[in-house]
């Protein structure tokens, strides 16, 4: 044995917690985008079943399972014992948001794939029915999804909301990390997910009317997100010593510049102003604002994950 020190210097724990790196914010961001796509396309398909859709909007629900798989891949990369991942599916722990999340993710695959199939243009479905002719019962599935598009759309809205909220609750339930320990984080990540989901859809070649509708929705979402961020910060700033020290990282502490420039200015306020100007002057919304919203959404996850790990029970001195 060779030990240089017997005070605690365990890797990733000391001097400050840093167990979660880039993979986790990437997953939370992609999960939020998927939640947004599922809810927005689900609502669209449920509320406007007969209106003609652009080819892009009809095909975009396929992005849900694709982006979710990418996110889950990053999540898997983060595991220290990745080949034990199947253990998540041998149990259901009611007190563990991560356990809830694991099961929500498994429900999302069939729901999102079936809705994406149902929403796809008829000629696309015909081509794939021919290509996959050897797959048994595919005709029956095709007929079933056509008849049940609305319930599938509603299921996507519900599961999307569950996904968006759980990613925030996952962090929010940890009393040991004061920056995360807020019930606002669930709705905040849901609304941010909706906003980045709308932004993701706007990257594609949608019809003008679809762009205008999504952009209008996004305006409201950004306004609500700013309000939720304000409530989150007020809650922490008016809390105990731990909470105030935690939020201090965004007010003069190491994450101040990144938070206020990338998240607030570039990711929320600038796109909000741009969208207001676009609507005032009846300009069809472009892609630049969407890119800014996506950058802001990713920066929010990144800063919350990293700054949250740097927050802890600092008042240990006063407890003695």
């Amino acid at each position: 044995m060779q030990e240089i020190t017997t005070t605690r210097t365990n890797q990733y724990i000391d001097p400050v917690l840093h167990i979660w790196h880039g993979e986790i914010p990437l997953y939370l961001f992609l999960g939020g985008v998927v939640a947004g796509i599922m809810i927005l396309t689900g609502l669209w398909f449920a509320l406007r079943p007969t209106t003609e859709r652009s080819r892009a909007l009809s095909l975009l629900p396929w992005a849900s399972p694709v982006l979710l798989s990418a996110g889950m891949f990053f999540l898997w990369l983060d595991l220290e014992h990745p080949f034990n991942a199947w253990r998540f599916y041998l149990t259901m722990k009611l007190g563990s948001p991560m356990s809830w999340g694991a099961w929500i993710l498994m429900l999302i695959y069939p729901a999102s794939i079936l809705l994406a199939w149902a929403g796809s243009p008829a000629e696309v479905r015909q081509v794939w029915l021919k290509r996959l002719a050897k797959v048994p019962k595919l005709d029956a599935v095709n007929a079933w999804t056509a008849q049940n598009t609305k319930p599938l759309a509603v299921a996507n809205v519900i599961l999307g909301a569950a996904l968006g909220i759980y990613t925030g609750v996952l962090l929010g339930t940890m009393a040991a990390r004061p920056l995360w320990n807020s019930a606002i984080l669930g709705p905040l990540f849901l609304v941010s997910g909706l906003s980045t989901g709308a932004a993701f859809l706007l990257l594609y070649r949608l019809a003008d009317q679809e762009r205008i509708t999504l952009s209008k929705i996004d305006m409201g979402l950004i306004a609500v997100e700013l309000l939720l961020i304000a409530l989150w910060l007020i809650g922490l700033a008016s809390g105990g010593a731990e909470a105030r020290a935690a939020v201090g990282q965004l007010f003069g502490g190491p994450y101040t510049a990144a938070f206020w420039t990338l998240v607030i200015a570039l990711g929320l306020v600038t796109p909000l102003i741009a969208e207001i100007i676009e609507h005032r002057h009846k300009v069809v919304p472009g892609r630049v604002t969407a890119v800014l919203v996506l950058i802001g959404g990713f920066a929010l996850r990144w800063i919350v994950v990293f700054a949250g790990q740097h927050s802890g029970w600092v008042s240990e001195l006063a407890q003695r």
Partner: protein
Amino acid sequence: MSDKSYAMVLDTRTCVGCSACVIGCKTENGVAKGYVRDWIFSETTGTYPNLQMTVRSERCNHCADAPCVTVCPTGSSHYGAGGTVQVNQDKCSGCKACIAACPYGARFIDPNEGAIDKCTFCMHRIENGIPTTSCQEICPTQSIYFGDLDDPNSEVSRLLATREHYTLLPGAGTKPKHFYLK
């Protein structure tokens, strides 16, 4: 599972921070190089020449309301014998949620297993009839006590009944079962 409530008591008046408990634990439990399951906390407060020093040996608090057990998605972290907090490494996926949930920083990733490691209160000894933990056995000032809180005549119960004591971060609400005598 035994119907006991195991707890540890450390006398901060006699602990000198010699680190024997740390090395004893590492030897007994084969803890990975560079990592510790128990450690020496020493802190100096005040302004020279009016200084005060606190020294104590710390480890997992085996909380009665342990957030690490609550957040564990696979059931790897669980309450074991005598209400202690234990880890089943075979079930651990290394998601690290328990590390984030522990306000004491008592857990770490065992680099050899890719799974969570931490103090077990030496249950492999206690459950096999050896009455002491390894840190307790090696302590040269006999500052470490281990026993059953449910037994009013146990050494830990009598010490807690007669001496002023505290737990770490009581505000975190985890109900630690590791006590420090003032």
